């Protein structure tokens, strides 16, 4: 019974065209992790509250645990694996390491993706804006102190590098 019907989908993940055959109920998070082997995206609550599974869908942060993979056929996705370019860490990645913005690292991919999109749209945020930007992601280790610092520091690095 219930032989599931698979659907062929094509995603552009971190700039690479990837094909998968998935049942309609396959979550994007599971598709990325288990079908495409991109395990950097983590699943912390499976109901869209913790933000650990955040990826960028056509550049915008989405909860991949609340997204069916078949609904994003043909779209562009950036995961934590795609934030570095040519082996060089992004400003957000460097800032998180520099400021001790992570401990166990499980929630970190979600924060990195969220902060990346935020700083692209708002390269010089104030304290309130940073707090607002990350207030949809849960972290149980850091108390957020150094995550906030890291987002500010990433803005600084971005500005320095833009010259």
């Amino acid at each position, binding site marked *: *019974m*219930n032989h599931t019907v698979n659907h062929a989908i094509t995603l552009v993940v971190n700039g690479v065209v990837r094909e998968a055959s998935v049942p309609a109920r396959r979550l994007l998070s599971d598709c990325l992790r288990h079908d495409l082997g991109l*395990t950097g995206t983590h699943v912390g609550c*499976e*109901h869209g509250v913790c933000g650990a599974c955040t990826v960028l869908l056509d550049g915008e942060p989405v909860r991949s645990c609340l997204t069916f993979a078949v609904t994003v056929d043909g779209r562009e996705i950036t995961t934590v694996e795609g934030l570095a370019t040519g082996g060089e860490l992004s400003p957000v990645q460097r800032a998180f390491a520099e400021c001790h913005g992570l401990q*166990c690292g499980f*929630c970190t991919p979600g924060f*990195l993706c969220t902060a990346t999109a935020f700083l692209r749209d708002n390269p010089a945020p104030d304290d309130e804006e940073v707090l607002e930007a990350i207030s949809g992601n849960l972290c149980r*280790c850091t108390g957020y102190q150094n995550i906030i610092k890291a987002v500010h520091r990433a803005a600084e690095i971005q500005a320095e590098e833009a010259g």
Partner: protein
Amino acid sequence: MSERSEPTREHVTGVFGERVQRREDARLITGRGRFLDDLGGNALAAAFVRSPHAHARIRDIDVAAALDVDGLVAIYTWEDLPGVLAEPLPLLIPHPALTHGRTAYPLAREVVRHVGEPVVMVVARDRYVAEDACSLIEVDYEILKPVVGVEEAAQAAHLVHEDVPGNVAAHMVQEVPAPDGRSAREAIEAAPHTLAFRLDIERSACTPLEGKGVYARWDADDESLRVYSSTQTSTSVRMAIAAKFGLPLPKVEVIAPDVGGGFGVKIVHPWPEEILVPWAARLLDREIKWTEDRREHFISSAHERAQVQYVRVGFDDDGRVLGLDVNILHDNGAYTPYGIIVPIVTSTQLLGPYKIGAYRVEFSSIYTNTVQVTPYRGAGRPQGVFCMERTMDRIAAHLGRDRTDVRAANFIQPDEFPYDQGMTFQDGRPLIYDSGDYPESLRMLKELIGWDSFPAMRAQAAAEGRTIGIGVGCYVEGTGVGPYEGGHVQVTSDGRVHVSTGLTSQGQGHETVFAQIVATELGVPFEKVSVVTGDTRRFGYAVGTFASRAAVVSGNAIALACRKVREKALRIAADALEADPRDLEITDGVVHVVGAPSASIPLSTIAVLSNPLRYAFDDETRRATQFASSPSPDRPPVGEGEEPGLEGRDYYSPIRSTFASGMHAAIVETDPLTAEIKILRYAVVHDCGKLINPMIVEGQIHGGVAQGVGGALYEKMVYDQHGQLLNASFMDFLMPYATEVPRIETAHLETPSPLNPLGVKGAGEAGVIPVSAVIAAAIEDAEGIPIDRMPISPSDLHALRLAR
């Protein structure tokens, strides 16, 4: 001595005491971490049918409908479990006072005792299919009366376990008489002032962002088992599995991969899944993985904190406590796999930095039909500190004295260490504080928060129509408990240093701080050192990561192992350089004669020389072969008492715990209309002895405080009268986001521990311990209403205002 927390970016060399960036981060920020569910891409998936009832008898399990599910591999119930696997899970920490310890079966046998207890295991092609099958399995239950709420349970109208009278798992009394021999109750009767009150602390839980998980691989050819588990103790999981399966220990290896937070819940073991998944993997000769989902974590892992405390205290006109009598009802949930560690810790650490005239503490550990209670960061201390600090505040209010003066009047003084509290601690060893400076800590805290200028601040706020209050809380934390940890340090012929220790990591930065210790002890570049934790293939003897013990116990073991390696390196170098070992030192991985830098030999070469070879396979090894040099014909190539290789192994077994301490203060504002509670400032003075990496210690404090804020204002496991957990999701169980955690101001005091070579004390749990007490004090100060329970929501505060 005191230091504000700002990241620094100056050049660091990676030695003890520096703010070194973490080793772990490179993989974690690029998605290359390896957490449990990242492994075993081709493994079958396990899922569980769990009890929907808090208390019920299983009449029948009907799996027929599930058998047709495409992709189903196997279904198991308790009846399928062979031999010792069908027995209850181990009672990990027996104690004479735990007269009625009870543990669960890996799969429920006849009776379920909390919502979430596993009843059936399903193995299938993937998790989706496994859950499909689970949903088609029908379990017929006869519903029994659930026992919910610790005070109701203590009345024992109904029983959780038929054979446990009164629902009492354990009952324990500890009594320390006054110096004049009077008992606590006598001292209270005779005291000039007495107070009596009741305190109530709710349930919370660790809730690491990554739940538990197990992935097992059976190698049929080798008849060996490799198990990955998101655990805080891989060595002990290994022993438990070997014992349950009757396998020789060397045929079982357990590895804790990257673990997404623990906070205590993952020290419990073996979880049912840690037994069942490897068992099925062996039986089916297939790789199997189970990854806990969030709801499972809420209803089938562990909670903590819930206690009701009845307090009587007698004190003099200065607020000095003459006698303290505390009776604790501790809710241990449905089972007691971790014994009575939590209420023992509450009972003993309740004393904090104080000299109490006479002390009596009694606890009853009570069964309820709820998720079992095992240590959560702080492990009973937040409750003990809540009790003592609320007591101090009530004494101050009664006498009309400053709250910090009352505390200072009771402090153990710096010249009184070692200070024997006269009790038995959680490790069965005497509760003797090793070092500390509580008056200095309080002075620093008052300065940091601006205690003395607060009345002016309050007046200013009042003039603006705002209500603010200030609170303070002090704690002492026994850290670094034994029995032991070990470390292995090996220098290879490429000059790299490989370090392993058996305990595990869940985000504490062990790879970094242990490498700092090695870089310092051995005189090698930080970058050359790599550290492995929690992998029984690398180090088989260990206890685990809990009780703020990793830096203390493994840190010192690794330091001692380094000292062995160093001694051996200097001995070999002295031979090679024809020098006295006492004239040698190691800098940047090179041994050289002090004052004669040209007479030198790198550790990489010493590693080659330390291992006499017959066979060469490169230029380095050629130098160690038998015809390459002319060693003494009278000595064997490996001397008596020597071993080949430049490596060392050592263990550190502390005589007893080392006692870290700290004091926190907060200023809160309460909204006159909405009763919203906002933390305006939060200040921490923290003393964990010598700091290995201040950046990491501050990170630990930040995380602890945030969990404390959760426990004080938001987090609460809400059970209804049927034993249903009503808020088993992150939507309804309110963990703090960035918007709920205030900026945390920290200062460090360093009173080194005299008990261990590095002078360190533990730092992992500290941040969370006094937060509920501090926030309660600040709200009480703002509102003028006694606060005797935690957490406190705006609705709770509103109700308190109405009842005033």
